[in-house]
């Protein structure tokens, strides 16, 4: 099984603050990997470096074996890395269809083909009944789906999902879990940041835990939740000895 993403010795310093420190991580094709950790652990920084928003201070990132840490975000998208934003960024003044078409245009120059692709993606995410609604008028759950739809329309190999469950009700979380599993069935490798543990347990093949920018555990969801270091990090020192 080949690795779609290889991160080695990745570090990021902001002035005197080290947000990420010597991180090693691999993601195999077709996996669903979850990156978890307490608030401020550095998870979004890792995502931003994979997506190209930040340049790493040290280390490198390889996508399908190719080093990408110098590529711009739009070039990485072209190569097959798509992402969503934790605080969703829809093109609010435009319709849902328009939003997704922007993504679809990546692989075609024809308006007709882009529209067709966008409609397909909307159907996959059960958003097609909202295609003509302005994005500003969507509920938070639908906005999160739109965020995924936009990214999906670019035909990615690797999809970075940044806390897509945040703010969703339990039934909506279940729907989202099904959608993400469906994405994997379509051949997309998924890398998620998530706080909602139920989703993490249900979705991920493997989990990586970081704390203060450093990896403190990795393994299957079951292994990780029993790991002493992880429990200490989330709940405090007194809970460590088990």
């Amino acid at each position: 099984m080949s690795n779609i993403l290889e991160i080695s010795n990745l570090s990021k310093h902001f002035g005197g603050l080290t947000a990420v420190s010597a991180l090693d991580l691999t993601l195999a094709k077709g996996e669903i990997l979850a990156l978890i950790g307490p608030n401020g652990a550095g998870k979004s920084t890792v995502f931003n470096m994979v997506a190209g928003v930040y340049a790493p201070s040290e280390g490198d990132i390889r996508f399908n074996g190719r080093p990408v840490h110098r590529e711009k975000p739009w070039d990485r998208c072209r190569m097959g890395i798509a992402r969503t934003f934790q605080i969703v960024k829809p093109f609010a003044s435009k319709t849902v269809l328009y939003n997704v078409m922007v993504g679809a245009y990546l692989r075609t120059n024809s308006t007709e083909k882009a529209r067709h692709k966008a409609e397909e993606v909307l159907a996959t995410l059960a958003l097609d009944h909202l295609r003509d609604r302005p994005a500003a008028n969507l509920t938070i759950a639908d906005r999160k789906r739109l965020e995924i739809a936009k990214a999906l329309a670019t035909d990615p190999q690797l999809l970075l999902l940044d806390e897509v469950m945040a703010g969703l009700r339990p039934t909506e979380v279940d729907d989202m879990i099904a959608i993400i599993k469906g994405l994997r069935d379509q051949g997309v490798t998924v890398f998620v940041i998530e706080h909602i543990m139920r989703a993490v347990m249900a979705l991920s093949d493997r989990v990586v835990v970081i704390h203060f920018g450093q990896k403190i555990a990795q393994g299957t969801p079951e292994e990780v939740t029993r790991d002493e270091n992880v429990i200490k990090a989330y709940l405090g020192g007194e809970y460590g000895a088990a």
Partner: protein
Amino acid sequence: MSRKQLDHTLLGLVGLIVFALPLVVTSPTYLQILILLFFYAYLTTSWNLVGGFAGVLPLGHSVFVGIGAYTSTILTLQYGISPWIGMLVGGLVAALVGVIMGLPTFRLRGAYFCLCTIAFAEGIRVMVENIDNLGPLHINGPRGLLIPLKEPSFWHYQFMSKLPYYYIILVMLILVLALTWFISRSKIGYYLAAGGEEPEAAAALGVNVANTKLFAMALSCFLTALAGTFYAQLMLYFYPKGLMGLDLSFEIAFIALIGGRGTIAGPVIGALVLRPLNEFTRIYLSDMLPGLHLVIFGLILILVMLYKPQGLTAPLSAFYNRLADRLTGQGGAK
């Protein structure tokens, strides 16, 4: 009749009227007013490609009008090249200057971008005013350039009556509107809108925002310069302060803003409302109250920005939509 049929019929009707207007309006003075109206509508529509679709606010666009006028006129006066060819050369020069201007400035925040466009434009204007000769090119500084009368012909881009000028600018306007309409429905249009509204999200979807903005800038500057040549051939005289000054730049931007930037009809509607207002206030009231037309202009701008920042096109097109739906019996379902 379906909604689409109604829209097309009305469009056709308007086109017919506009083309047939000179049959009814024969006075050269009024033809001139109409010509200038189309001229401004053309300039504002070209500006709209950057100021509306790309989401930035260039406030120094008149400098490209000047580049077009100076390029074609110098080529005609000194090298005998037909203004039509000079016009295209002027367009290319303007596009080049526009890209050079845009490369470092598009990454600046909104207000700084505006200041930069003003600084660039004024800088170039000041230089043109100071230079009499640039190598072999005779620029004539603040006095401007005068085009001597020639045998009226298409090739010389000079005509006896106003009529050919009327049709030239009308065709240019229609072409530029069609181009804008086409772009808004194409990949580049979507990319421009996305990059203008949420640049980070657009970049994450594969949009090279800076490049699309540069493309819009190059296109806009090219088209703007063409109008510069038109003006030069219409008036046969121009000078830096008049053609490359901030007054013209601001007027272009304001018309688009009041009409509705980012829409296709906005610039035209803005020009339709404001140009006659400007002209008539200036003609009739300027002696008693100099500058009144600009006070009114400023007041309208402020009022529109306070109450209808999207421009006048928004309420007008809502009204038209309701009317059209009523006429075609399709009221209700939206």
